[in-house]
């Protein structure tokens, strides 16, 4: 029920102390921490407080070259030749140390990226560790993965991760690459490098041969040098469709294999026979999980007309009870926006939505004085052609549209250049199978949303990218077939 009186929670702050963040981080190349040739460092701040957390090395082109060279040497000298079962044991070690140092990683992730500690503790870090554990087991079983083919490694993989799930996506990239016998040079997003650097330390602690995994930090230019490097055999990128296009263009005509996990505008479809209260929770989780910084977020809501009024009211009531604020508080539902720049983007889209004539509603919660925060919000009266219904906002802003028939909602849901994810809420099994088949998207959540698992392949159709991460299918982007 919507009342002005809200549940009051006493603060339940997590301690910063377990993060043990160093004042400065160097580049991790060839098993060692090395100073950048540029001698340049950039600051990493806590988006919830705007306080500086650490300073991080900016990798120059020379540093990128060094890292790729180290990776190539490690590939030829150790990793390619190593018995797959031994390779597996190294990867299992990484998973185990991540589990042991889970609290440190979770607190660091939240301080660095602004996501609620509850999410980094219960989702990001355990899922990342599980990913290593899952792929470790594949290393000596690749002969069973591809019928009638033998799968060989590619060589050196260049990997670029985004800022929304920093450690988790580093795991999505590194684990399958190592399991299939490739070596890695990884560049994390510049606003969220810390947990990836801690992962590098874990890899060092696990005693992997030097150069098998290298981490170079920096902004877009560092990533561009990596994608342009001639001695790279594979690029895996997660980020915006805009940058994905540039990378695909850069790689055109080369021998490099490519995986792209790009943007999305997930359609979340609510039929009148859906379990309404569960669906409301699912929609909330679909759009406000991780402040809406999720490529597969259910950001386009389609509600069947007959229940739209009631459903939207329930959503507004629920949004008003979301706890927005300090990410380190264990009660917090919606934390800080990752950066000042992203906050600006979100605010610009809210302005666009209003100008397009949609009706705006936001939670009346109070926001902290410092840091980058945004109230959870929704737009109703949105048209399919509105920019807020077509473009990825990547923030806690839900667009609500309505429909009458199954055919209509299939048409509308598919009317998007993206095709990453979709949700379907209905009590009717045959409808789930029909709609889920007709929707052009790589992941379909029926009567649930935003679930991930190492065994479950993830990736998009159309302009949401190509290739899969996770599951058996997640191995293929890192292998080449040779005759059995």
């Amino acid at each position, binding site marked *: 029920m919507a009342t002005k009186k809200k549940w009051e929670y006493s603060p339940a702050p997590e301690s910063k102390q377990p993060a043990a963040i160093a004042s400065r981080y160097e580049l991790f190349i060839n098993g060692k921490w090395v100073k950048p040739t540029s001698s340049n460092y950039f600051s990493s701040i806590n988006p919830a407080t705007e306080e500086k957390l650490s300073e991080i090395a900016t990798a120059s082109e020379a540093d990128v070259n060094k890292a790729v060279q180290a990776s190539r040497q490690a590939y030829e000298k150790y990793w390619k030749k190593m018995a797959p079962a031994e390779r597996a044991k190294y990867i299992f070690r990484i998973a185990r140390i991540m589990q042991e140092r889970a609290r440190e990683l979770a607190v660091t992730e939240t301080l660095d990226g602004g996501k609620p500690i509850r999410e980094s503790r219960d989702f990001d870090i355990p899922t990342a560790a599980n990913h290593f554990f899952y792929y470790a087991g594949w290393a000596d079983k690749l002969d069973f993965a591809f019928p009638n083919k033998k799968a060989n490694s590619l060589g050196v993989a260049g990997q670029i991760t985004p800022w929304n799930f920093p450690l988790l996506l580093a795991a999505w990239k590194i684990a399958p690459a190592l399991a299939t016998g490739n070596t890695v040079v990884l560049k994390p997003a510049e606003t969220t490098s810390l947990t990836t650097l801690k992962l590098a330390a874990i890899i060092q602690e696990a005693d992997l041969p030097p150069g098998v995994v290298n981490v170079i930090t920096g902004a877009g230019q560092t990533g561009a040098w990596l994608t342009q490097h001639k001695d790279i055999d594979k690029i895996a990128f997660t980020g915006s469709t805009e940058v994905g296009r540039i990378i695909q263009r850069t790689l055109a005509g080369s021998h490099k294999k490519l995986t792209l996990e790009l943007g999305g505008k997930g359609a979340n479809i609510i039929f009148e026979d859906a379990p309404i209260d569960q669906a409301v929770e699912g929609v909330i989780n679909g759009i406000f999980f991780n402040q809406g910084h999720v490529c597969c977020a259910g950001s386009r809501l389609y509600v069947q007309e007959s229940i739209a009024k009631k459903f939207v009211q329930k959503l507004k009531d629920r949004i008003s009870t979301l706890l927005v604020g300090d990410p380190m508080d264990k009660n917090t539902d919606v934390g800080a926006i990752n950066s000042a720049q992203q906050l600006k983007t979100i605010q610009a889209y809210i302005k666009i939505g209003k100008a397009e004539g949609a009706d705006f509603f936001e939670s009346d919660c109070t926001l902290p004085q410092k840091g980058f925060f945004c109230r959870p919000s929704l737009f109703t009266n949105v048209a399919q052609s509105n920019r807020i219904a077509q473009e990825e906002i990547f923030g806690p802003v839900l667009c609500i549209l309505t429909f009458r028939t199954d055919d209509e909602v299939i048409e509308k849901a598919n009317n998007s250049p993206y095709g990453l994810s979709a949700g379907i809420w209905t009590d009717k099994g045959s409808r789930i199978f029909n709609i889920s088949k007709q929707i052009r998207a790589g992941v379909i959540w029926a009567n649930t949303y935003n679930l991930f698992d190492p065994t479950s392949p993830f990736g998009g159709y159309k302009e949401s*990218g190509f290739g899969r991460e996770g599951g058996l299918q997640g191995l293929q982007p890192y292998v080449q077939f040779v005759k059995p």
Partner: protein
Amino acid sequence: MAKQSRLEVWKTYKNYVGGQFPRTESGRSYAVKNAMGKTIANVCQSSRKDVRDGVSAARSAWSAWNNRSGFNRGQILYRIAEMLEGRKKQLSDLLVTQGYTAAAATQEINRSTDRLIYYAGWCDKYQSLFSAVNPVASAHYNFSVPESMGVVGMLAPANASLLGVVSLMAPCIAGGNTCLILADQEKPLAAVSFAEVLHSADVPGGVVNILTGYQQELIDWISSHVDVNAMVCFDQEKADWQKIQEIGAGHIKRTFQWNAKQLATAAGQSPYFIMDLQEIKTTWHPIQTIGGKGGAY
């Protein structure tokens, strides 16, 4: 011969779009010559507009074709093979006119027919082989299945007039895609006559569309078409391959280069060619747990 022989009826070679045989809208043609340099046909020099019409026909046909059962698609591929077998003589004469020896022509047609039957058999099997039920660590049922990509642009290789077209088309449509094929520029006649085979084999109009024309002129238009989900070609010149990928990057097109040297070998056919043109879709659903504890819904 002493007696006046009957005057031969020559055939007009046209495009195959949406189950019909239109001329290019541009009205242009180019001469196809035999090994002796004699003109044997004036074929369509297709234009950008023909590409658009072809893609549009392929897109219209896609949904129904994609929704047909694998079994039904298999029957239709098998039917194409039956029709091809019946037109062996016609196709063979045509290949010989274009410079094949009689033995090579027969071999190419036999290989093409056998390849169609090979893929006919895959239509309802690759899904089982490449699907998975994933053992997720929560109370959810989770499965991944291959699905067609949609509309595929295909550039036929040189020196395999018929086998090249069949080896492109068969894995593509076996997997529920529809396609627009640009025939080999120098030797396009077998591809056009193959369209007649398709036409008489219960292949719904628009599932396969075949154009003749200049590859250099049309590559840009096929690669840049937003409604073409994927491109397949064989051993292109490096500059062309780079161009196809560069232009395709504009809307994240999937691009594949298959090996022409393998065409006439066992390696020229594989379910992995079907899988190149498939997306993987993963679906989740909660599992009820009695009593609710641990249940996800």
